[in-house]
């Protein structure tokens, strides 16, 4: 059935209002504080390690992001943990709070479609995450310039920027998930717990699950090389169902130019390879499927949330 009028009329208004709410909320202040402290801590701890290799590595600046210094994980690993938390915290009550505060029916009685509301909320969340991540990224680079005393090269900036875009896509996946749960569950606490359990599953238990499932699906026979290869491929495919894996692989290939492949590499394939860093364009080609996967996951989850929301009754 056709309906008159532009489906997204008012989406911009909703987005600006939600963005203002997000940026001024106490919740966001706390999360920003947490992310900045964690990021700064990780980078600061890494500086000592990085300084010792300044003369050996042409991409020393990128090491700021990737080098861990026990007991702290690397900056990238920190982000892998914290981005989902921030995204979930932003999204878990975005739709159900409108019901719980009884603003939903009044809001939808204004001349807008529901589409505008959901799109506006998602875009506002994504914009908030993008602003936070970009600020953090600039902060780390600035810290690096101050502490290392040398500026990043053009390629380092490009690679860092590719990583930033991937991080935003990764945050989009978790935001869409949180939004979905905020549509499905009328109670904000249930939505938050559901989203956090999914995060817990992928952050901690997924690798264990994969190592349990893969041998069942593709048993590895030590005497049969093909079965070993098959097992390795299945393990890889399963672990890539997790957005965390996709993000970690993207970060690895984008920030470490010597990464030549993200999959299984046979020794025969390495024969005659020159051990030199990959050009930027080749690294981008390497991470393209991963980033596409992240964006697709975000769009897929948003679509499910969208359909669920369209079918929902307005009355509480």
């Amino acid at each position: 059935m056709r309906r008159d009028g532009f489906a997204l009329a008012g989406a911009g208004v909703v987005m600006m209002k939600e963005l203002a709410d997000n940026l001024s909320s106490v919740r966001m202040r706390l999360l920003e504080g947490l992310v900045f402290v964690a990021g700064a801590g990780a980078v600061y701890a890494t500086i000592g390690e990085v300084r010792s290799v300044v003369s050996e590595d042409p991409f020393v600046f990128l090491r700021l992001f990737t080098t861990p210094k026990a007991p702290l994980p690397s900056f990238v690993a920190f982000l892998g943990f914290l981005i989902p938390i921030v995204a979930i915290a932003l999204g878990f009550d975005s739709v159900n709070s409108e019901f719980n505060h009884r603003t939903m029916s009044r809001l939808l009685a204004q001349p807008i479609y529901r589409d505008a509301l959901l799109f506006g909320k998602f875009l506002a969340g994504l914009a908030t995450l993008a602003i936070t991540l970009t600020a953090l990224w600039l902060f780390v680079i600035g810290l690096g310039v101050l502490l290392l005393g040398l500026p990043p090269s053009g390629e380092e900036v490009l690679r860092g920027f590719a990583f930033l875009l991937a991080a935003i896509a990764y945050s989009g996946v978790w935001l869409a998930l949180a939004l979905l749960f905020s549509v499905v569950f009328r109670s904000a606490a249930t939505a938050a717990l559901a989203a956090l359990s999914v995060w817990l599953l992928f952050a901690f238990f997924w690798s264990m699950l994969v190592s349990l499932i893969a041998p069942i699906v593709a048993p590895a026979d030590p005497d049969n090389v093909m079965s070993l290869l098959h097992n390795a491929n299945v393990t890889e495919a399963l672990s890539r169902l997790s957005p965390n894996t996709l993000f970690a692989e993207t970060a690895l290939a984008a920030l470490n130019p010597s990464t030549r492949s993200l999959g299984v590499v046979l020794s025969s394939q390495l024969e005659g390879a020159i051990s030199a860093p990959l050009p930027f364009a080749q690294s981008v080609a390497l991470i393209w499927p991963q980033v596409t996967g992240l964006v697709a996951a975000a769009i897929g989850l948003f679509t499910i949330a969208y359909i669920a929301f369209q079918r929902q009754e307005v009355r509480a």
Partner: protein
Amino acid sequence: MSEPIIRAEALTKRYGSALAVDGLDLTVEAGEVFGLLGPNGAGKTTTILMLLGLTEPTSGRAVVAGFDPLRQPLEVKRRVGYMPDSVGFYDHLSGIANLRYSAALCGMKPADADARIDAALKRVRLEAAGGRPVRGYSRGMRQRLAIAEILMKGAAIAILDEPTGGLDPQSTHEFLELIRSLQREGMTILLSSHLLDLVQSVCDRVALFHRGRIGLTGRVDTLLSDVLGGSHAIRVEARGAGLAEAIGRVAGVTRVSEAANGFRVEASGDVRAAVARSIVEAGGALLSIEAGHASLEEVYTRYFEGVRDAA
């Protein structure tokens, strides 16, 4: 006769196997205050949501302000102001900021919106509180803010769902005054309520809801005489044996029922003198006798008693 501003034809809404609204026909003329009455769960809110295009009817159609809420919901919502049952606002924002958001969603320019918001807040006497966060508003203030939103929107039709729910008598009184003044300015008002007496005092016409159907529609005074039979109700306070029979024998009395400390008598005319005499003659002690006003509540109980008996 001009086209009614709200018309519903055979509007039906089914939730699974439950029938929330069952073949509802309704017309509201421009400038009227129309009351939807009935107990909770009778289908009033569902009807309102269908008129606004917020819920899709299972079958039937509606026309609001010349538009189809199903296909042209934006046009309908531009002309209709809606105050939901227990209305909510964003607590952390001020009253003004809440209205600014609604104004922006209606596509108003900020300068234009601010002027309208100021005027609307003055109308509902919230100009002093407008800058404070809604968190600190009382229930009555929230309801007035919702009316301000409708005024600011410049809506031709206001749909109010349980507008006086949870208000104290003083606020209710003020609120009813506000509704009357809106009507004087030519706004059409559709309100739903389970408080029948309230509706009686402000509505031109009412529809009595019962299990998703409209039982009765009409002007309040017509309904009173139709259902109660042009009735005069009398409250009698008396003590003594066999008084009910004695009163029942008085000419013109149609019904006698037991009430606190006495009886409730319905009659076709003013029979107070005759009833008093009959009580005294029957040897009863007459303590007081007074004429009571017939109310919609009685119409409602009586009518649906009849419906139930017939079923």
